[in-house]
């Protein structure tokens, strides 16, 4: 056990300066505890997509930092994020991953809670004196706000409003959600896996185009020529842009920034069958074009500090477990248009499985690379982790005033570490 004072005294922020970090950022358990406190208990942490709570009295479980939480929608439709910890003697009140129920009964002594967290009933009430008021013991409730269907929570009553925290990232979230093809975005399922490494190794990776042609060579080799050209992520004039507050965007395929643009372009050969299937479902020509264009997702990764990314066609969520263990969830998303968009959603699921997940053509190689970082950093005390890569972004790409670099630059990592430093110094 560390002492709180010892944690407070260490000048953690000094471990990142300019464009390099000390290797201790991946391996110091005391630093991990300080991060959970100063970052994950302090800022907005993604917990769910709106479609994962599809109606009154639905819920899912998750984590904010290392704290298990219950994410609920009450009967009026309002979303709550509650610590999954009974107010009596701390038993977890729910161990299901998701579901629908109008009451949560603690299995130990039967205290029951409403989906908004209020304590509804205490068995054998007579054993408490008349001063005991159940209204004093609701489940601990976090602040909750959402933008573009993404639900965030924070322990910090003084955190700025979510929209202010997201700032320039909001434009990119709006663009990302266009892959709903006009029907809105819906979660279709997910993969999750752990790797033996620090959470910031994954945070860095979401804006790392540099590794793509090397680590993902076997994925690229498995594509038809047309698709392989689409995934030439370093060769299409992309860029990385600091969006403030630790957020950044990496644009790999500039032609796929706005999925509602260029709808008149010819449908690529590889999507001809899908287009025919969608037309057979009764969609008009424009809708078919919109769905087909949206089917492969966007051409960018939006990294939202500290725990979620809108990554081309899915959400990538990280959960720090301990200093050298991180859990990743790849949330597959599709179009919320029911059976008539079934062919498009099935195509999206197969594309997702192709790259993502524990046996995808991409993920296991990423996970191996990240583990190798954690193994390597045991050596070389005092040698820096370099995030100094990058030349200028192509003319006319990033918004004026934003720091930006070429698509292979480490601008996004520097943006995240500057926010990390700011929060660790506070």
């Amino acid at each position: 056990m560390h002492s709180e004072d010892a944690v407070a005294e260490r000048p953690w922020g000094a471990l990142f300066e300019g464009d390099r970090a000390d290797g201790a950022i991946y391996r110091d358990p005391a630093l991990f505890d300080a991060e959970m406190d100063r970052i994950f208990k302090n800022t907005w942490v993604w917990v769910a997509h709106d479609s994962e709570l599809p109606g009154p009295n639905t819920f899912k479980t998750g984590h904010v930092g290392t704290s298990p939480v219950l994410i609920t929608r009450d009967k009026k439709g309002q979303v709550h994020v509650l610590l999954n910890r009974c107010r009596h003697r701390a038993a977890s009140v729910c161990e299901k991953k998701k579901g629908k129920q109008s009451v949560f009964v603690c299995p130990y002594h039967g205290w029951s809670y409403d989906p908004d967290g209020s304590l509804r009933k205490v068995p054998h009430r007579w054993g408490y004196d008349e001063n005991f008021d159940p209204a004093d013991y609701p489940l601990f409730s976090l602040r909750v706000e959402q933008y573009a269907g993404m639900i965030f929570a924070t322990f910090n009553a003084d955190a700025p409003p979510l929209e202010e925290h997201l700032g320039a990232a909001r434009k990119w979230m709006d663009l990302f959600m266009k892959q709903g093809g006009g029907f809105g975005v819906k979660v279709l399922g997910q993969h999750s896996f752990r790797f033996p490494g620090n959470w910031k190794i994954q945070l860095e990776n979401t804006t790392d185009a540099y590794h793509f042609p090397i680590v993902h060579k076997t994925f690229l080799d498995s594509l038809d020529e047309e698709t392989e050209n689409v995934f030439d992520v370093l060769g299409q004039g992309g860029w990385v842009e600091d969006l403030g507050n630790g957020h950044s965007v990496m644009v790999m395929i500039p032609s796929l920034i706005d999925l509602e643009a260029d709808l008149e372009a010819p449908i690529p050969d590889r999507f001809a069958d899908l287009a025919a299937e969608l037309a057979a479902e009764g969609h008009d020509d424009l809708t078919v074009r919109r769905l087909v264009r949206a089917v492969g997702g966007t051409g960018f990764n939006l990294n939202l500090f500290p725990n979620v990314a809108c990554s081309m066609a899915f959400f990538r969520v990280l959960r720090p477990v301990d200093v050298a263990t991180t859990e990743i969830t790849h949330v597959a998303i599709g179009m919320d248009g029911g059976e008539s968009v079934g062919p498009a959603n099935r195509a999206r699921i197969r594309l997702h499985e192709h790259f993502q997940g524990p046996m995808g053509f991409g993920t296991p190689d990423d996970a191996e690379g990240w583990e190798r970082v954690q193994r390597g950093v045991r050596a070389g005390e005092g040698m820096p982790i370099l995030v100094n890569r990058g030349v200028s972004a192509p003319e006319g790409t990033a918004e004026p005033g934003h720091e930006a670099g070429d698509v292979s630059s480490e601008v996004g990592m520097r943006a995240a570490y500057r926010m990390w430093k700011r929060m660790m110094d506070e």
Partner: protein
Amino acid sequence: MSAVTLDRPAVTLADLTAFIWAEADLLDRLAYKDWLKLWSTDGLYIVPVERGVADHANAVNVLYDDAEMREMRVKRLLSGFSMSSAPPARTVRTVSRFVETARNETSVDLRAAQVIVEYKYERHRLLAADVDYRIELSAEGLKLARKVVTLINCDDPLHGIGYLL
């Protein structure tokens, strides 16, 4: 095997388990090209992420491979360019607890238990699974028509797996 047909009692549980053990042996030895030949052309190899799902085609799976995907996957695993499979974790697997669940003129369904121990970077990991097989009789003998590997922890976090289950 040439004269064997399924409606005769000639295909015994011993024949079927020998076939499955031979498959397991190919997988542990990374003889993936020979493994591809065990499959019928329209066979499906599925590793789900949830237990009890019937409609795998409309669900996210760990993998959902038809013949084309199986071939691409084998090419990737043997290419030498995939960091997680060059080399992969070593594996030793056993398949047992066979139960025949259905039989008709052309195929037999079996349920079995599979335990894989994998080893890499001084770490052992255990992967237990229920496996459902559909084994078809073709002109060339027994063929895998369907293999669904449901890991005991499929709905919880897994890890990068650089070999075949």
